[in-house]
């Protein structure tokens, strides 16, 4: 990174500026207090709480079926995977074995969710570095997935498709065909993404060597998902702690060793291919049978502590439940990937310019309601 030498006649002065909470590049209500010297960033201090809804406190009041719905409103781009995490925790605690059909459908929809989330990220990523076209390309492909979700789950964003014990409804008769159509369509579109943005010289210069995060720092800051894997840190929960049908499929964990913005970008592009491959392996072999096992109307977890981690589009999402044997958790903590990934923003942005901060933040793929739970 270049540093400007200041003529001795002028004093270099640090001052604060606010970025957000209503700034388009923060993708939500996040306020960053920047300490800058000219255009060089000296310190980035996030100020949170603008969209905090105290979901953890609400969970202490609600039943386990109700909690599932609240998790949609955290990382809304990974809503299905968040729902799945709560359901898996409850099912593990009850020692409830769900049918294979449920596991496979959950995994397929989970990977579709990941692709949809990465499409949106890719669109706004381009927009953040000044390429407006990518936004429309990303949304065009995401729209197809949303249509599939709408048909099967009845919703496009906050899906509520999982319930403890299985799925709320069976899949729509068109689901398999439309998913296959999407795979065929999307396989021709990822190379288009590469042609449009990845190989672009201006884009490469904005990304290469910017926002460097070493592997040691990534682990220490609790980075997960594509942010950790861009630093060469193998942290895919789907590999290390497989859940649902993920132990039945083969896929490569996307790992890049660059540690810069470009590496994080490339990891997500490769993940699009891997997710497609996972769906392809499962879509023709959805086992028959029930789409849910009946549970009691009031679910009471046994006394104890339960933890389940899953891989959302942003990284490791954890659900930690302390139960005293009643119908609501005594304490429920969500470990959200965005919260840890935000904490390293100061570390990787210091010394860079404000324009690079926007680009770096885009590669962290932050969803603010996930951070402000």
């Amino acid at each position: 990174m270049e540093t400007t030498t200041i003529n001795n006649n002028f004093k270099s002065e640090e001052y604060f500026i606010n970025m957000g909470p209503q700034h388009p590049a923060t993708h939500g209500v996040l306020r960053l207090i920047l300490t800058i010297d000219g255009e060089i960033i000296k310190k980035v201090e996030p100020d949170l709480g603008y969209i905090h809804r105290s979901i953890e406190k609400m969970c202490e009041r609600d039943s386990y079926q109700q909690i599932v719905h609240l998790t949609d409103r955290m990382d809304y781009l990974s809503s299905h995977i968040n729902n799945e995490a709560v359901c898996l925790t409850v099912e593990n605690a009850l020692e409830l074995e769900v049918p294979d059909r449920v596991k496979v459908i959950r995994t397929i929809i989970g990977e579709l969710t990941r692709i949809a989330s990465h499409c949106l990220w890719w669109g706004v990523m381009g927009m953040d570095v000044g390429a407006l076209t990518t936004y429309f390309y990303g949304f065009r492909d995401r729209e197809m997935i949303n249509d599939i979700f709408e048909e099967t789950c009845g919703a496009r964003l906050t899906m509520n498709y999982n319930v403890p014990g299985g799925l709320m409804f069976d899949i729509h008769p068109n689901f398999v065909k439309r998913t296959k159509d999407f795979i065929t369509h999307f396989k021709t579109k990822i190379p288009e993404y590469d042609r449009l943005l990845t190989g672009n010289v201006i884009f490469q210069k904005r990304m290469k060597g910017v926002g460097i995060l070493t592997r040691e720092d990534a682990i220490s800051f609790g980075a997960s998902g594509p942010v950790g894997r861009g630093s060469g840190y193998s942290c895919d929960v789907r590999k290390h702690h497989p859940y649902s049908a993920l132990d039945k499929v083969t896929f490569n964990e996307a790992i890049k060793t660059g540690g810069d913005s470009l590496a994080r970008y490339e990891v997500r592009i490769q993940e699009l291919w891997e997710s497609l491959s996972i769906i392809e392996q499962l879509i023709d072999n959805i086992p028959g049978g029930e789409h849910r096992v009946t549970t009691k109307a009031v679910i009471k977890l046994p006394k104890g502590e339960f933890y389940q981690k899953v891989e959302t589009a942003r990284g490791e999402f954890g659900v930690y439940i302390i139960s005293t044997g009643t119908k609501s958790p005594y304490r429920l903590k969500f470990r959200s990937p965005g919260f840890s990934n935000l904490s390293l923003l100061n570390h990787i942005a210091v010394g860079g310019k404000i324009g690079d901060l926007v680009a770096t933040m885009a590669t962290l793929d932050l969803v603010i309601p996930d951070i402000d739970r």
Partner: protein
Amino acid sequence: MTNEALQNLIGSWFPNPEAGKVSEVEVVKVSETEDDSEEKPKAQEPVNPSLLEFTKEESQFLNIIVKPGQLHSLMSQLKSNEQTHFDYLFCLSGVDWGEELGVVYHLESTSHRHSLVVKVKTKDREDPRFDSVCDIWATAEFHEREVLDFFGIKFSNHPNLKYLILTEDWEGFPLRKDYVDEINMIVK
């Protein structure tokens, strides 16, 4: 490493000098080991061979309950020791157990892939305070600030301990069980 092996290894770091005082033979043994390392912290309660308390608590992880005084030395050993090497703090939660307030640390090793849960508790609800683990895991900085917001637990040696989510004039600690929600903001 299996949970049993972890328990034996970690337990041996904090031997309880009071543990073997039942029989004369063992007293000699214990005093010998004491001479070798005088820096070992002194024990208060003669409960088990280790100053740490190991529990299962119907959890899938091995749980350790540590006294606030030994928290930081235990945590830094857990990370630096090559056999344990817990370099990934994946979850840090504040908990209000009614009488006691505390913090739960979920740890994982990225090289050995074993997990561990460390709990620290205090009965002091007026001024609860633990050592910060920010210098061991950088992720703790934000997580500890969040615990300060919602439980009012303070962390010594934290580089920037102030409210992260709540406004500075917020009264009370929302996730504590005795929090009075006067304007029905959260609960109903």
